[in-house]
């Protein structure tokens, strides 16, 4: 009997190759391709008066220089706005090369192609640009003040304003026995994958066909964009995603200017052209995320039950809005987490600033929403002097309430309906895992040693497996090897491993005989992309369905060949036999031969197949309802997202003298339905927690008033080293299967990073005894906060918060 691989800790087949330096990234392909560099704006806001490229034209080794004036047709129009929304009344996108104006430091102005990157950078340095400086808008406060505008035709710097209401939150709050207000800030970080953006392209004039290799999270998206912008048919463009050194969201935005300019130059020059982004460019010309200012008003009863929640927030989306409102919409809807306020109002303004654009970064607006909600829960608990887990439990959606309809519209434009979950069970698990009930004793013991510790908890629900669809193609070769293609891309998640697990289970073939291809439009031209924790749910389900079709066909042919009933057959180790008998058998490879009436006996397998006879003499060789080949193809398109959930808890120690923050224990419970590969899920959690530690305690984008990014390098942008990440992360799983897909799975890619800001703020607040309302937080900032609060001894039990006036006093 073949062992079932679903649920097994199968080692990642990718790792040997990737860890030994045998990965093949865009920069490794097409040796000898011409290289390019981009002249980027050194100013945050300026009008371009004149560009002089004369000095570049005679440079030896330089093949082409492009400015906006050289762009024609669709390339001369602003880049596409990928996800429009009715509320995005003032959406703006940049040009592939700046036209007349630049709006952030790093915006592309000119594109140079040369023999190598050294010469291209030398040439960039020789281009002269006359600027007329405009006053920059930096930071949410300045954007809101709107004394200066990023775009002349966008009043108030407001790109969008969106409000959603369930019930009447203001009235419910006004009538509530208790009310609190919170003002919170969360700053910018970024995906910062190991490999930045990269694209290489070649034009084949004989076939009039363009090939593009891009380090992207969506090869089909890039293909459509390149075809449209360069005036080619889709059928003339192949986009192939090679190994990608991490994406974390930034590579779902497309097309980047370079993704269009590289193919444009490749066609014009008739030679392969490459762009490989360097680290400084990645900081100033890709995308950031997270920055929001939030104002929360909440009304609740004596038990801490939410009666009304009114959230207003301001989202900094940078200089342009190519990715629409996805991030703030997710914040505004996923903020609710596992809770059910009876009345909810949320309104946000998405604001322009003269900074790098903001597009989804792992978590994609959820970390901000969880931060708002969980800080509120902690504030209620502090106000009522109740245990923080008790307040949360009081507000949980209960296991028997699924599917639970929040009566809101989610990021995909569909109703926000949770499919499944068990939040009380998660809470019990996290309390046990972190030692919640024993913590006060631990605090006392540590205090006796002069040490200061704090405990924090944060809960989240994550919509995963967002549609619209993914597809898969499964082909069984005559060798018995199985070739599988799905269109979304891989950035190191372990798709080759988990997808092969799914196929092996369905086909009963050997795991080692399965090859998975992702992100190649030649193999699967219909696909969406890898984002929103959707690969396992979407492509996993599609692969399962396609493999099932291939299995059905294999068994149909086998039943014919073995003169048996298909229902009596089984496949073990790639061999089909009649269950419980020792009679004749037939291999999947032989069935593949039999599936194709064109049967030249090239090999032993084909010769072996001649002993079997299939099909009926009275029918055509390929029956009307059949196709040659042993293949299965299918698509999975769910009616809505499936909602994973989880809780994190952390114990921190804060140094009384230096304000350094140390992680003593980090615990995660996670529910992503059935686990295909627990080791890979845990790896996703480890990586997410590491990024979360970065976002909460180390990373931020430091812009000065003039819009210069002051820390555009890994020396000053403090991504945590392994020494800053907890040595161990305690993980426990809960499996409430999703009813929405055949495998009962939910996404797991982003969860590890979602509650970080909330959970660290809670733990530090618990250790220090004063509210933490701005994240991330550094030792220097904690030191300054201590001085402001003049804390001699921590008074962790009580968090001072201003209670608003009571309803009685409010009324005239």
């Amino acid at each position: 009997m073949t062992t079932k691989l679903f649920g097994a800790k199968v080692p990642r087949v990718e790792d040997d190759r990737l860890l030994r330096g045998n990965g093949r990234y865009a920069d490794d392909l097409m040796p000898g391709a011409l290289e390019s560099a981009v002249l980027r704006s050194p100013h945050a806001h300026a009008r371009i008066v004149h560009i002089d490229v004369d000095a570049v034209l005679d440079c030896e080794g330089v093949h082409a220089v492009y400015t906006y004036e050289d762009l024609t047709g669709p390339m001369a129009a602003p880049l596409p706005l990928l996800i429009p929304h009715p509320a995005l009344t003032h959406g703006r996108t940049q040009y592939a090369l700046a036209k007349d104006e630049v709006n952030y430091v790093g915006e592309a102005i000119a594109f140079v192609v040369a023999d190598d990157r050294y010469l291209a950078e030398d040439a960039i340095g020789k281009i002269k640009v006359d600027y007329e400086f405009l006053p920059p808008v930096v930071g949410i406060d300045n954007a809101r003040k709107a004394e200066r505008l990023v775009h002349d035709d966008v009043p108030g710097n407001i790109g969008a304003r969106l409000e959603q209401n369930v019930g009447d939150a203001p009235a419910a709050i006004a009538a509530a026995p208790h009310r609190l207000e919170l003002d919170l800030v969360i700053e910018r970080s970024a995906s910062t994958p190991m490999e930045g953006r990269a694209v290489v392209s070649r034009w084949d004039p004989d076939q009039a066909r363009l090939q593009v290799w891009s380090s992207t999270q969506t090869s089909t998206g890039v293909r459509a964009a390149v075809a449209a912008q360069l005036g080619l048919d889709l059928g003339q463009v192949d986009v192939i995603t090679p190994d990608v050194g991490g994406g974390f969201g930034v590579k779902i935005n497309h097309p980047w200017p370079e993704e269009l300019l590289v193919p444009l130059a490749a066609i014009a020059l008739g030679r392969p052209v490459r762009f490989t982004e360097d680290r400084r460019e990645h900081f100033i010309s890709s995308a950031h995320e997270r920055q929001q200012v939030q104002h929360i008003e909440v009304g609740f009863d004596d038990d801490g039950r939410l009666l009304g929640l009114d959230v207003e927030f301001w989202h900094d989306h940078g200089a342009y809005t190519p990715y629409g409102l996805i991030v703030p919409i997710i914040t505004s809807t996923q903020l609710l987490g596992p809770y059910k306020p009876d009345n909810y109002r949320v309104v946000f303004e998405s604001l322009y600033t003269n900074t790098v654009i903001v597009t989804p970064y792992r978590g994609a607006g959820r970390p901000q929403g969880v931060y708002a909600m969980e800080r509120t829960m902690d504030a209620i608990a502090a106000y009522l002097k109740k245990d923080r887990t008790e307040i949360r439990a009081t507000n949980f959606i209960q296991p028997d309430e699924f599917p639970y309809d929040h009566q809101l519209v989610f990021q995909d434009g569909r109703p926000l309906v949770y499919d499944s979950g068990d939040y009380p069970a998660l809470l019990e698990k996290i309390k046990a895992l972190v030692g919640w009930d024993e913590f006060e004793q631990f605090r006392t013991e540590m205090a006796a040693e002069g040490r200061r510790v704090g405990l924090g908890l944060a809960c989240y629900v994550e919509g995963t497996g967002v549609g619209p669809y993914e597809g898969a193609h499964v082909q069984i070769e005559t060798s018995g090897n199985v070739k599988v293609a799905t269109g979304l891309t891989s950035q190191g998640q372990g798709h080759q491993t988990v997808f092969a697990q799914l196929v092996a289970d369905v086909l009963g073939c050997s795991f080692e005989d399965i090859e998975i291809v992702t992100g190649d439009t030649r193999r699967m031209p219909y696909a969406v992309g890898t984002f929103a924790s959707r690969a396992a749910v979407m492509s996993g389900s599609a692969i399962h369905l396609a493999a099932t079709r291939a299995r059905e066909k294999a068994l149909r042919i086998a039943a014919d060949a073995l003169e048996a009933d298909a229902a009596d057959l089984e496949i073990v180790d790639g061999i089909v036999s009649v269950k419980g008998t020792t009679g004749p058998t037939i291999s999947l490879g032989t069935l593949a031969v039999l599936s194709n009436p064109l049967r030249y006996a090239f090999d032993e397998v084909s010769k072996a197949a001649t002993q079997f006879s299939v099909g009926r003499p009275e029918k055509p060789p390929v029956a009307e309802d059949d196709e040659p080949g042993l293949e299965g193809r299918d698509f999975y398109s769910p009616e809505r997202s499936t909602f994973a959930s989880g809780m994190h808890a952390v114990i921190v120690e804060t140094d009384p003298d230096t304000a350094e923050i140390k992680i003593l224990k980090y615990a995660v419970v996670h529910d992503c339905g059935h686990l295909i590969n627990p080791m890979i899920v845990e790896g996703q959690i480890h990586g997410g927690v590491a990024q979360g530690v970065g976002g909460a305690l180390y990373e931020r984008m430091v812009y000065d008033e003039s819009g210069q990014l002051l820390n555009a390098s890994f020396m000053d942008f403090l991504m945590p080293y392994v020494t800053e990440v907890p040595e161990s992360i305690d993980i426990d799983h809960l499996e409430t299967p999703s009813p929405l897909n055949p495998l009962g799975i939910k996404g797991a890619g982003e969860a590890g990073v979602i509650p970080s800001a909330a959970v660290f703020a809670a733990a530090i607040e618990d250790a220090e005894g004063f509210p933490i309302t701005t994240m991330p937080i550094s030792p220097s900032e904690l030191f300054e906060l201590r001085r402001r609060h003049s804390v001699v001894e921590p008074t962790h039990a009580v968090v001072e918060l201003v209670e608003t006036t009571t309803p009685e006093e409010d009324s005239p």
Partner: protein
Amino acid sequence: MKPAPFSYRRPGTLQLALESLAGEPDAKVLAGGQSLIPLLSMRLAAPSMLIDINALPDLDHVTTAADGVRVGALARHAAVLADQDAVRVQPLLAKALANVAHSTIRNRGTSVGSLVHADAAAELPVVLRLLGGSLDVASTRGRRTIAAEDLYVGLLETSLRHDEIAVEAFFPALALGEGVAFDEVARRHGDYAMCGVAALVQVDGDRVVRARAGYLSVSEVPTVIELTDAFSVAVDEESLAAAGEMALAGLDPQTDIHASADYRAQLVRVLTARVLRSAYDDARGRMLARVER
């Protein structure tokens, strides 16, 4: 992030290297390259020529004698750190070098290169200053020795002349009755410190004969402060706190994106107390060990 054009020499003798340097006013000397190469790649520096001294013979030595440790211009941090004799004769070397970046950088970066790069956030310039060491430099005009106290003249600036190559540093041995300690607080393990302190304390019995400390990242140049007066009575919380205040009077902590000036001042206080206490204990421990032997 590719350097601007430069010419490149890799001379086989010191004399040739010195001649190249003398003839090229905009040349830079390349040893470990751990600071210079990033500066070139970010085009923050654009020398006309790089003179790579890695092929020069006899410069990678770490020589230990009773009076101290001599470190050649091509000795890597890792080699100094791994040299048992060197770190026995001057234990501060090991304590400080363990805080120099990460092992990959220590494998390549040179200790002498760090000294002449003169970054006030670096560990070794402070160590050389604190110990009262010196640097031997050579030019076509001959060789001279620069005392550590005369070496650092400004922000990232030494008293080396353009045509001079640093060939050897001298770190004096720990003297009888002396103890040392080092500590720093960085945002991440191996980063440039927000503040770091190296201390040298000499005792006679329980009494402090001399105490001084060198400071990283809280002044424009590596700075050493005499703190002996703080410990005229005893080494206790009060005197250690007083030493911190005394040190602050001679330092100039600044605000940057990682730490406020006030926070850095706090680190000066905390680390001064910790490191002076630790150096005092080290000195007393060494005396006791000596008596026991």
